């Protein structure tokens, strides 16, 4: 029998990060894992909004882009300290999300999806057209590395040691949030807005708070991305990337913190394995989305847990819960 405390996923997470930091020295794998970390950040944020709150955003790549370009422009063009640029990105993204959120979140379902989709497209066009500022379609180069206490984070290993502990903290904050008063209000309004309101929940306010909150995650991810790549171009922040993020949320599991990590990991690693299918990436994502929705509608994490519990019930000779 394993003591219950050892099954704590946070211990696993910490141990895995330490282990990887210790044994892994391959730059390719470390870079891939860093990307998984950055995408997980995005996916957790989107999952709070979409999986827990039931509010669809098809424009999340835009917040990622705003974060990345804030960092990129402020550091490469204006020479601002990267950490200050990152903070500035958060402020810009937060304000943008608030301004977009106030009118959009009055909409529901498809209409909200369309509004955020439109916003994503506008940002994408802006990044392409505002050439003097963003460098246009050819991108923005020369973004400096982050440095921490005099140490320049210029290798994948060093970035790993920033990104993954930071991700651990963000995942922890997210798990706390979900299990807090505001988190309960958020999940409640997802299921019945009327009932939540009848209990004193200001649903409009909670929706805007979580929209801004999730945009902040995206902005942080964008800044990290910019300093990891040292180069950014609009194509990374387009509509297709928003769809990819939604796919990651659905694949890992709506309303699942760990599912976000799994969804991001699978959909980051898969294209690397399937490089020969590069041109068909979109079709493959579509197929994955369909298969998951049909067979594991609650996503990989919940779906696999369900299968496992199902087997245990059968073993115990109990009836299958529905």
């Amino acid at each position, binding site marked *: 029998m394993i003591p219950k405390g050892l099954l704590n996923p946070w211990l696993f997470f910490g141990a895995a990060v330490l282990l990887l930091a210790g044994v892994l020295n391959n730059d390719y794998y470390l870079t891939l894992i860093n990307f998984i970390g950055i995408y997980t950040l995005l996916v957790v944020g989107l999952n709070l909004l979409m999986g827990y709150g039931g509010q669809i955003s098809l424009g999340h790549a835009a917040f990622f882009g705003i974060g990345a370009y804030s960092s990129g422009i402020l550091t490469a063009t204006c020479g601002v300290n990267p950490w200050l640029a990152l903070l500035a990105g958060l402020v810009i993204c937060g304000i943008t999300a608030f301004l977009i959120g106030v009118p959009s979140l009055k909409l529901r379902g498809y209409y909200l999806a369309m509004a955020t989709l439109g916003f994503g497209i506008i940002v994408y066009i802006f990044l392409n057209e505002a050439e003097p500022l963003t460098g246009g379609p050819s991108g923005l180069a020369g973004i400096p590395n982050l440095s921490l206490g005099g140490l320049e984070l210029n290798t994948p290993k060093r970035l790993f040691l920033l990104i993954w502990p930071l991700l651990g903290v963000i995942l922890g904050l997210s798990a706390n949030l979900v299990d*807090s*008063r505001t988190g309960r209000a958020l999940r409640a309004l997802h299921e*019945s807005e009327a009932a939540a309101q*009848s*209990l004193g929940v200001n649903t409009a306010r909670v929706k805007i*708070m*979580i929209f801004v909150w999730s945009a902040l995650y995206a902005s942080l991810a964008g800044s990290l991305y910019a300093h990891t790549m040292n180069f950014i171009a609009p194509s990374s922040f387009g509509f297709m990337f928003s769809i990819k993020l939604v796919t990651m949320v659905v694949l890992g599991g709506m309303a699942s913190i760990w599912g976000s990590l799994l969804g991001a990991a699978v959909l980051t690693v898969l294209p690397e394995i399937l490089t020969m299918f590069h041109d068909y990436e979109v079709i493959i994502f579509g197929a994955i989305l369909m298969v998951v929705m049909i067979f594991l509608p609650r996503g990989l994490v919940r779906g696999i847990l369900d299968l496992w519990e199902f087997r245990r019930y059968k073993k115990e000779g109990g009836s299958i819960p529905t």
Partner: protein
Amino acid sequence: MLLELQEITLAFGGLQALDRVSFAVPSGTVQAVIGPNGAGKTTLFNLITGFLAPQSGRVVFQGHEIQGRPPFEVARLGISRTFQLVQLFDHMSVLENVMVGRHRLSRAGLLAGAVRLPWTRQEDKSIREHALEDLAFVGLADRAHQPAAALPLGLKRLLEIARALAAEPTLLLLDEPASGLDAVETERLQEMILALRERGLTILLVEHDMGLTMEVADRIAVLNYGQLIATGTPREVQKNPEVIAAYLGTDWQT
């Protein structure tokens, strides 16, 4: 008077849902609203709780006009309700459903909750304890950790009441709480309503089960086609010829 309706009027298109309806609910009483289907009972509830605004007239709660205020503000004043079609948070546990009920009595915001400051930890603990008490009151304590969706309808109604009580309301509105309950459950509901009145809670009740209504109501208001046709004690209302006509048709008398 805890709650006063003054000349409430609301029409949906050509349909006069409520026509100059006035009545008052004294503190600490159980007041029932009855009437045939479509008489405007649920509309009345929605007006009191802010889900609808009247075209004219006033809703006065504890001396303040509350008509036209959004539902969450009305709830924060101490008015809780249940729904005719049960509105639970299906994917949350039974306990969590009731914990949401204490939203208006707690204050941890998004950041405080994410960082889990010591005081929010304390607050959450107290929310949990109070919620368990409310669950125990309706007899659902042993199901606290099941998902709400797993409960049978009768228990779902009880959970909705526990959730509304968690907000520690001054006024509780119950919209057909007995519908879908069997005889034993209805009996329990009746005891519960009387126990709540003992505690000093004021209850406004819409109910089709006349047995229950007559047992628990101190006063009854009768609506028919959006008009208030009678108010009085259960006994008075039962004898009122207009009420009899509304329920049984005028032909019955001749």
